[in-house]
C-alpha cells in the first residue's frame, strides 16, 4: 500500500487558515505539499466565520452611517434593507477570496485533494470521501488542521430556522425581528450587535456574570453599556433549561428568569474540535478529554512528524491568526529552522462588535492574579478629535503596566481597547506589549494627529507619568 501512496514532504489535513497557511508556507520553502479539504479551502474562517460575520457587521455599519447622515446635513428617508442582497454581497466577497486562495494554492503547486482526510499509522493519510475518495498519501510530515465546529446545546436541535448556530446564521437571507443569542462571547456578541443594529430585538443569554468574559472588565462594560443603550437585553448568570417552539418562533426557558419569546435562537456556546474520523488506528496522536489534539509549543503532537495547528489544538485561542502563526511555527520546525513559538498570552484579539473591542496581553485582573503590582491608565475616546469628527465617541483605551519599585509604570503588560476601529488600532499596542516596551519607551513615540490612535498615545503619556490631556 505504501508503494501506491504518493509521497509528500508535508500532507496537510484541513484547508482552513491553519491548514492553508501551513501549505503555503511549506510550499514557499520549496517543500512538496498536499492539502486535503472536505469542503472548500478557506475553511470556517472564510466560509462560515470571520469573513462572513465581518461582512454582515459592515452591513450594519453602513446602515448606521446612513442613519447618522442627517447630522451631517443629508436628507435621507428611513433606510430599508433587502438582506438577500446583503447575503449575496457577502457571498461575492467570500467567493472572490476563495478564488484568490485557490489560485494561490495552485500557483504554489500544492496538490489539493477533496475529501475528508484521515491519518493512519506511520504517516499514511487516506482520503475517505469526496472527489478524491480512496487516495492514499504518505507525508514525511503530516499537519492536522481539521479545525472546529460550533458546539450545540442539548435540547436545542439545530434546524436552521428557529435554532441556528453561526453556520446557519451566516447563510440567512432574511433577518429575524427578534432573536435570542445563547452565549455572550465574541461570536455571540458580534451577532447580537449586528442584529440589533439591523433592527432586530435581541436578547443575549450568558451563563457567566458578564458578557465578553475573556476581556478586561472595563472594556467589556463599554460594550455592555452600549448594548443596553441600544435596547439589547442582556441576561447574565443565566441557565437555559430548554425551549418550546411556537407558531412564530420559540419560547426560551431560563431558570429563575422570565421566559423569552423569540423568532430565532442562535446558539454560540463555543466551538468543539472537529476530530471525528481524523485519526485511524495506532497513529500515536494524543487527544485531550475534550477531543482536542495535544501539541507542544512547536506544534508537535505525540506522534513523530505529526503536527497540529489551528482550532483543533488543545488549549490555544481559536483565532485564525493564531492558526496562521502556528502553521509557520510548525513548518519552520519541520525545516529545522530556529523558531519562536506563539506566545499565547500576547496574541492579538479582535471583536468586531459595535463598539469594537481589541486587546493584547494581560487584563488588569489577570495581571494581579499573576502577582504583578500594576499601574493602570485609561483614556476615553470622547476626548478624541477624530472620534468627534466621525461621530463615534463610545469607547476607551486602557493600558496596564507593571509597577516599578518607585511606583512608576514599567513594562506594558496589556493594551485593551473598545471603540471605533480599535481592531485596526491594536497594532501599535501589540508591538509594544510583545516587544516588552515600558510605558515611557512607548510614550516617546508619536501618534498622528488627528487620529483615533492618539487616544492610545495619550494613555501611554499618562502612564509614563504626565499626560497632555489625561491625568
Amino acid at each position, binding site marked *: 500500500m505504501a508503494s501506491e501512496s504518493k509521497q509528500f514532504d508535508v500532507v496537510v489535513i484541513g484547508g482552513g487558515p491553519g491548514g492553508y497557511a501551513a501549505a503555503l508556507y511549506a510550499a514557499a520553502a520549496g517543500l512538496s505539499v498536499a492539502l486535503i479539504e472536505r469542503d472548500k479551502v478557506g475553511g470556517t474562517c472564510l466560509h462560515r466565520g470571520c469573513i462572513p460575520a465581518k461582512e454582515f457587521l459592515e452591513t450594519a455599519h453602513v446602515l448606521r452611517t446612513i442613519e447618522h447622515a442627517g447630522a451631517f446635513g443629508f436628507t435621507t428617508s428611513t433606510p430599508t434593507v433587502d438582506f438577500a442582497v446583503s447575503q449575496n454581497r457577502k457571498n461575492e466577497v467570500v467567493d472572490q477570496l476563495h478564488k484568490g486562495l485557490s489560485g494561490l494554492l495552485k500557483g504554489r503547486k500544492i496538490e489539493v485533494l477533496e475529501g475528508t482526510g484521515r491519518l493512519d499509522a506511520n504517516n499514511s493519510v487516506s482520503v475517505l470521501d469526496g472527489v478524491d475518495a480512496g487516495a492514499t498519501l504518505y507525508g514525511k510530515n503530516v499537519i492536522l488542521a481539521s479545525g472546529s465546529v460550533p458546539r450545540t446545546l442539548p435540547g436545542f436541535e439545530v434546524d436552521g430556522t428557529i435554532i441556528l448556530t453561526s453556520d446557519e446564521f451566516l447563510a440567512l437571507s432574511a433577518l429575524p425581528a427578534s432573536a435570542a443569542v445563547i452565549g455572550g462571547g465574541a461570536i455571540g456578541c458580534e451577532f447580537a450587535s449586528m442584529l440589533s443594529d439591523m433592527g432586530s430585538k435581541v436578547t443575549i443569554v450568558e451563563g457567566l456574570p458578564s458578557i465578553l468574559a475573556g476581556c478586561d472588565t472595563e472594556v467589556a462594560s463599554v460594550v455592555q453599556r452600549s448594548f443596553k443603550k441600544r435596547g439589547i437585553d442582556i441576561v447574565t448568570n443565566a441557565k437555559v433549561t430548554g425551549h418550546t417552539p411556537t407558531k412564530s418562533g420559540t419560547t426560551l426557558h431560563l431558570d429563575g428568569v422570565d421566559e423569552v419569546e423569540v423568532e430565532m435562537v442562535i446558539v454560540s456556546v463555543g466551538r468543539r474540535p472537529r476530530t471525528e474520523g481524523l485519526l485511524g488506528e495506532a497513529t500515536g496522536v494524543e487527544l485531550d478529554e475534550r477531543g482536542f489534539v495535544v501539541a507542544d*509549543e*512547536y506544534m508537535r503532537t505525540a506522534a513523530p512528524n505529526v503536527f497540529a495547528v489551528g482550532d483543533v489544538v488543545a488549549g490555544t485561542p481559536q483565532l485564525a491568526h493564531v492558526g496562521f502563526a502556528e502553521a509557520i511555527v510548525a513548518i519552520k520546525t519541520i525545516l529545522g*529552522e*530556529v*523558531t*519562536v*513559538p*506563539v*506566545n499565547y498570552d500576547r496574541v492579538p484579539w479582535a471583536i468586531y462588535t459595535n463598539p469594537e473591542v481589541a486587546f493584547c496581553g494581560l487584563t488588569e485582573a489577570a495581571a494581579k492574579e499573576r502577582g504583578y503590582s500594576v499601574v493602570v491608565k485609561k483614556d476615553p475616546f470622547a476626548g478624541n478629535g477624530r472620534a468627534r469628527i466621525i461621530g463615534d465617541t463610545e469607547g476607551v483605551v486602557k493600558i496596564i503596566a507593571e509597577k516599578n519599585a518607585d511606583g512608576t509604570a514599567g*513594562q506594558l503588560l496589556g493594551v485593551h481597547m473598545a471603540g471605533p476601529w480599535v481592531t485596526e488600532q491594536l497594532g501599535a499596542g501589540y508591538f509594544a506589549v*510583545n*516587544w*516588552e*516596551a*515600558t510605558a515611557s*519607551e512607548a510614550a516617546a513615540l508619536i501618534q498622528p494627529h488627528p487620529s483615533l490612535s492618539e487616544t492610545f498615545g495619550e494613555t501611554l503619556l499618562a502612564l509614563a507619568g504626565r499626560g497632555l490631556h489625561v491625568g
Partner: protein
Amino acid sequence: MADVTLPSLGESVTEGIITRWMKNVGDVVERDEPLFEISTDKVDSELPSPAAGVLLKILANEGDTVGVGAVVAVIGELDGSTNAPTAPVADAPASSPIQAAATAPSATTSASASTDKGLVVSPVVRRILDGGGVDVRAVQGTGPGGSITRRDAEAAVANGPTDDVSIALTPGMRRMAQHMVDSVRTSPHGFVAVEVDASVFMELDAVGRTTTDGTPINDEALVALAAVRALAEFDFFNATVAGDDLIIHRTINLGFVRSLRPAGMLVPVVHAAGGLTLRAMAQRLHELSAHVESRQLTTDDLLGGTFSLLAAPTPSTLVAMPLLIQPNVAALSVGAVRHAPVVVERDGVETVEPGRRLVLGLSFDHRVADPVSAAKYLERVGELLAAIDVNAER
C-alpha cells in the same frame, strides 16, 4: 600674549601627537609648569609652558598630530587685560582608550548580527543587551522557545558585560609593537642562559649600596659594569649588521630597558659606557632613571644604543628573554639575585654556605653569533662581575 609652539624634540623628529593637555582653557599656568604631553615615535614628553599667564586657547586637540614649530596654544597675560576666554576653543574630552566593542566596528558586533539568524529578539531586549555590553548569544532566554524576555536581558546585563573590549594602543604601545615586530622580522634570535656566582652582591650589601658620594647602586649597575668590561673581549656583540658586513662599534652605548605603565617600553642609553667606574655607572644610571620618571628624556637619550641590558622584571625572575633592540646584535638579560646554598672549597674541603647566584641570559642575532660565543661571553661577565672590587670602585 605668548604662542606656545611645539619645540624641537630632537634629531630626526618632525612631528608628535598631543596625548594630553594638563591645563584647560582659562587655567592659570606658571612658566615651566607642565602644559601638555607629546608623543613622538621616539618618546613621550611633558612640555613646559614657555610663559606665565592664562591659557587662552588650545589650538591642537588631544590626538592631533602637530609639526615641530606649530602653534598649539596661546598664553595670555594674567592681569586680565587680554580678553578672558568665554568658551574653550578646543575642549574635546579626553577620549577614553577603552571603548566597549559594541560601539566600535569590531568583529564581535558584526558576528552577533549575523550568527543569531532566526532568533527573534525584540528591539527593546536588543537595546538593553547592547547597552549592557552583553552578547545576545550569551543569554539564556526563558520566554517561549527560549526567547529572551526583557527580564532575561535585564538579569544578563546585571551580571556584567560579555562583549570583548577593544583597547586602543597608546602611542608607547604602538612604538613598542612596531619595534618588536621589526626586530623579530630582522634578526633570527638565539638565546643562552648561564648561572653565575653573585657573591659580589653580598660584598655590596656589606659595604652599603651607595657610592661614596651617596648615589644608590643597584644590581643593574654592577652587572652593567661587568657586561661592558666583557664586551671589550667580545666586541662582536657590540655591533650592527650592515648588509654583508658586521660593523663593530668602538664605543659602547649601553641601553637600559625601562617599562612604561600601563604598557610600552623605553630604552634610554648610557653613552660611552666603556671606561666607566662603578661610581660613574651608578651615577649615570641614577640620572637616567630620574629622567624617565620625570619624563625629561630627550630624543638624544634614546638614540645610539649599541648593546642593551634588561634588568630582572621582578625579584623572582630567573631570567627573561629580551628581544634585540635594533640594530643591536645582542641583549643581556639579568635575572634576580637569589640567595642560594653555594659550595665553597677551603683548604681542600668543600662546604656548603649561604651565597648568591644569578642567571644571565643573552639574546643574540644568530646571523652573526652562536650559542657557544654567547655562553662564553656570559661566563666572562660572571667572572668580571665577581672580580669587581666593590669597596674600591664605589
